[in-house]
């Protein structure tokens, strides 16, 4: 074990994967944002420089190239950078990658991995802070991975790169530098396995990505109000570990879902619907959705803050919802 940043841990997972499978190659080599973690890309280039190509600013063709290469037996990882730019490649992802296996009756599979950074990061304004995970969830055939911490991203990136399906790994610019103890050896975390980040008995808080750490902070705040929250990180939306969520709600009787996507048709909406339809009997109070309001992202810091899902807002909404 040693202390590693999220970006370092992700790099380690990628290096193990690329060592093991020489088909894995990278289109776009700036996985770690514009901050200090940016330098880590150099390690990747040093070791596997011949497997990295720097593409033009052509998201649509990049994603198409990845899908076509995957169909032809390659294992490409396509780096989109800012998640809002994946909308440029929407048709490729939604019309080509998602349906291909189904529409060819299994003749073809699409083992492509997309990587991008979502969410509010300060000054992103309307076109650089999107959280497309919920929209992707609405499209069949795409695996969606939302790592929340260094230890998880290392094992999840390993499984994403091994998957035979189109897999989107959505990181968060604000997670890249966050450090924690991470095992040094190679390991994989299977897709579809939720993690209980904090055990509790009064309410289940399902959170994703950066919202996991904020929800854990909120859970600490809630203890002072006598509320003992359980925090579950599904880690992947597709496949979704419904059993873990339902089992937790069966125990606590209450649910709040916290995610950065805009609230309508959001991750929070879908998980709320799953629990309402399959776990209605467990619920003692209405499900709480904590997501971004349905407005574009404003540049101005106080306005952006107003839309931000903070630990304080999570704690307030949970306390108010429990009543």
């Amino acid at each position, binding site marked *: 074990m040693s202390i590693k940043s999220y970006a370092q841990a992700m790099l380690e997972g990628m290096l193990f994967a690329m060592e093991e499978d020489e088909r894995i190659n990278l289109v776009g*080599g*700036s996985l770690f944002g*514009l901050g200090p973690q*940016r330098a880590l*890309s*150099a390690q990747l*280039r040093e070791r596997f420089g011949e497997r990295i190509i*720097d*593409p*033009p*600013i*052509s*998201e*649509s*063709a990049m994603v198409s190239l990845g899908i076509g290469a995957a169909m032809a037996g390659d294992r490409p990882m396509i780096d989109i950078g800012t998640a*809002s*730019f994946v909308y*440029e490649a929407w048709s490729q992802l939604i019309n080509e990658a998602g349906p291909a296996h189904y529409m060819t009756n299994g003749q073809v599979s699409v083992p492509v991995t997309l990587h991008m950074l979502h969410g509010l990061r*300060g*000054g*992103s*304004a*309307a*076109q*650089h802070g999107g959280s497309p995970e919920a929209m992707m969830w609405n499209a069949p055939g795409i695996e969606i991975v939302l790592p929340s911490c260094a230890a998880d991203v290392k094992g999840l990136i390993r499984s994403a790169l091994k998957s035979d399906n189109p897999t989107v790994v959505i990181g968060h610019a604000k997670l890249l530098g966050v450090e924690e103890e991470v095992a040094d050896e190679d390991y994989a975390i299977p897709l579809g396995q939720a993690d209980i980040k904090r055990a509790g008995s009064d309410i289940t808080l399902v959170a994703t990505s950066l919202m996991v750490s904020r929800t854990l902070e909120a859970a600490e705040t809630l203890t002072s109000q006598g509320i003992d929250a359980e925090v579950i990180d599904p880690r992947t939306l597709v496949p979704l570990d419904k059993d873990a969520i339902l089992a937790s709600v069966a125990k606590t009787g209450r649910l709040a879902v916290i995610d950065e996507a805009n609230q309508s048709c959001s991750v929070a909406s879908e998980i709320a619907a799953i629990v309402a339809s399959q776990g209605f009997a467990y619920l003692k109070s209405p499900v709480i959705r904590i997501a971004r*309001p*349905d*407005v*574009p992202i*404003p*540049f*101005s*810091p*106080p*306005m*952006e*803050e*107003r*839309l931000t899902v903070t630990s304080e807002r999570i704690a307030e909404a949970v306390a108010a919802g429990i009543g």
Partner: protein
Amino acid sequence: MAEKLEAGGRRDMFEAMLLMRRFEESVALMSKDHPFGHFHLYIGQEATGAGVLAALRSDDLTLTTHRNHGHVVGRGADPARALAEILGRADGLSGGRGGTLHLTDRSAGFLSTSAVVGGAIGLATGAGHALRRQANGAVSVSFFGDGSMEEGIAFEAFNMAALWKLPILYVCENNTKGAMASTEGGFSSSTMAIDELVKIPRALGIRSEVVDGADADAVYEVAAALIEDLRAGNGPAFIEARTERWPGSRPIWPDLSLTGITDLDMAWAPDKAAGEFAGWQRDHDPVLRLAARLSADRVLGQDEIGAMDAAIQTQLQAARDFAAASPWPDADLALTGTFA
């Protein structure tokens, strides 16, 4: 063929360039005390913006990108409100909602400033479609960088514009020369299979010219001739303005300290340029080049240029004070304004 710009027009064009330069220096200075996130500066490209803007009518429409400050301020937006917007303040051009990436002043002819690479090309094409239907001779102008030519929308939009003869001037600001590779910690240079971007629009039959993007007179003459043609119904047209990237825009975070605050005396005393980037200042700086030429052509004396600069500096000091004093917007406004 459009005529050369007369003396008064050249004076105004230079004034716009100097305003752009001092404005961007103000942005860089303010970023120290008021960090507002990542931003892009127009330093070194002023001649392209000012040369094209000098050829426009007030009812022409303009679209720009994340590197928009020079265009917006150069076309008449209030520098104080522009700075306030960049800081995210209530008095900003968009009330703080847009920030540096989306600086937009509709009253100065700007529609919506897209920070998605290639966005301005598509929007300008739409503006051209509307203007052709309105048939009053107005044109739309899209400013964009060489990176936009890498997006599929460029081809799709050029094809439509050519098919329907839309009155659009596409202005590609090719500042790739001098860019640092992204692997070296800078903005990437352009990633194209060709080095003459005009070949792409030319393949679609779009009249296209290459011009020295640091030579304001030359940009004006090319733009004015093409726009005259657009107004006559012979659109679209394309300009590739080539500039050597300002050293301060090579790293991923703009760095004013590399060349410092522009000393206009370098225009007539080139030896005053010193240091690692003296060559850029001597040979490429468009503001210094036009200052030297206007002085040699006896359009503006050194004293007059000095007085013009002093007035702009005073205006921008007031603009910085205004922006810094402008209040933050009411946070609850974040929840309103999505729909018309």
